[in-house]
């Protein structure tokens, strides 16, 4: 799937328009939406990769014309509906029509500080030694996984150099399918802007890439 999220290198969405003294939230619903999403993340019904894939599965035109909080809340609604915790009819009505499902864990106010401070680390013990070391030349695969992947289109088939070796982390291409953590070595790879865009300068594009995306170049 080459989804609406993968638009790096496209130049025609218009100017960036930074806002001076931007408030944390522009509208009250954005704050509510974010907090609801964070609270529901404690349910254990999905992981970060599943929820990203859900957001990316929106039709492209809707994705591009929706705001960040809109996309987030729709992703969470999709998952809650899919797991049978709520129905679209209930949202339309604004009230319960079918009895609640069992929620493994509800985030209480008392737990908020600890849950935020702990976060959800993504490093996991791996089985194999790292295949690459700093300075190694690598090439990204041309093929991408079916479904969710974090290998963007502009990097596929391109060569770069291992800039940093980070340890073993949950692999999103597997995790997004609910098939477990499948930890793999994570690297930061430096690609020259010349290699990726043909630019005549020394700029770099730095990407965090898992070992299964890479082969020796």
């Amino acid at each position, binding site marked *: 799937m080459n989804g609406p999220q993968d638009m*790096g290198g496209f130049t025609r969405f218009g100017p960036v*328009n930074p806002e001076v003294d931007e408030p944390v939230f522009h509208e009250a*619903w954005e704050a509510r939406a974010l907090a609801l999403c964070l609270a529901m993340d404690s349910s254990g019904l999905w992981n970060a990769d599943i929820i990203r894939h859900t957001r990316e599965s929106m039709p492209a035109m809707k994705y591009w014309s929706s705001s960040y909080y809109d996309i987030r809340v729709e992703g969470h609604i999709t998952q809650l509906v899919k797991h049978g915790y709520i129905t679209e009819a209930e*949202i339309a009505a604004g009230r*319960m029509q079918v009895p609640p499902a069992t929620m493994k864990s509800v985030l209480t*106010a008392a737990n908020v500080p600890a849950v935020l401070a702990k976060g959800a680390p993504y490093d996991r013990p791996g089985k194999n030694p790292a295949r690459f070391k700093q300075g190694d030349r690598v090439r990204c695969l041309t093929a991408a996984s079916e479904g969710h992947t974090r290998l963007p289109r502009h990097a596929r088939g391109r060569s770069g150099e291992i800039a940093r070796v980070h340890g073993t982390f949950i692999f999103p291409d597997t995790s997004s399918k609910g098939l477990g953590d499948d930890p793999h070595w994570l690297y930061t790879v430096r690609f020259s802007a010349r290699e990726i865009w043909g630019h005549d300068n020394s700029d770099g594009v730095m990407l965090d890439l898992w070992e299964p995306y890479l082969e020796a170049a």
Partner: protein
Amino acid sequence: MPHDGHHHDHDSHDHSELSPIALRVRALESLLIEKGYVDPAAIDLLIETYETKIGPRNGAKVVARAWVDPTFAAWLKQDATAAIASIGYTGRQGEHMVALFNTPDTHNMVVCTLCSCYPWPVLGLPPVWYKSMPYRSRAIVEPRAVLKEFNVELPKETRIDVWDSTAELRYLVIPMRPAGTENLSEEQLAERVTRNAMIGTEVLA
């Protein structure tokens, strides 16, 4: 413009003025509370936390400390997660931190092309422009054109490395300390550090 749909006046509590998405979120909230899936007090506390406690002043303190304390700077370079935790900032969307030190030769700039990953514990929630398709799509291919829209022009010789947060690493740019700040205290220095400088879309002067 896409992604500008939320730049309207703030919500009033009058139902008739709410946008469809505001109404939808309100209905969702009622429903989740009615079903016992969320604790309303937790919702209020989460909002309060990101509105008042977790924001770019955190990151500014990290930067100022790095400027005045070479040992801390070395630690930050070596293990940013631990060094930042020592000042008290940890957790969600900052579980795996990396500090990028700007130099006269290399300017670092951070983007998340695939979503909007951002180091929440040190910078708070991302600004609208960081989450917008224009920034997400253009920063990696024409960083100089994007920087111009922030009124930043770097010398041609300066190499720009654009870091795309494609994994769960979160990046904090450590800007160069401005000239003429030798006599400022760590606290005064922190006041000079802006959010955009810690993303790499501003150069402190």
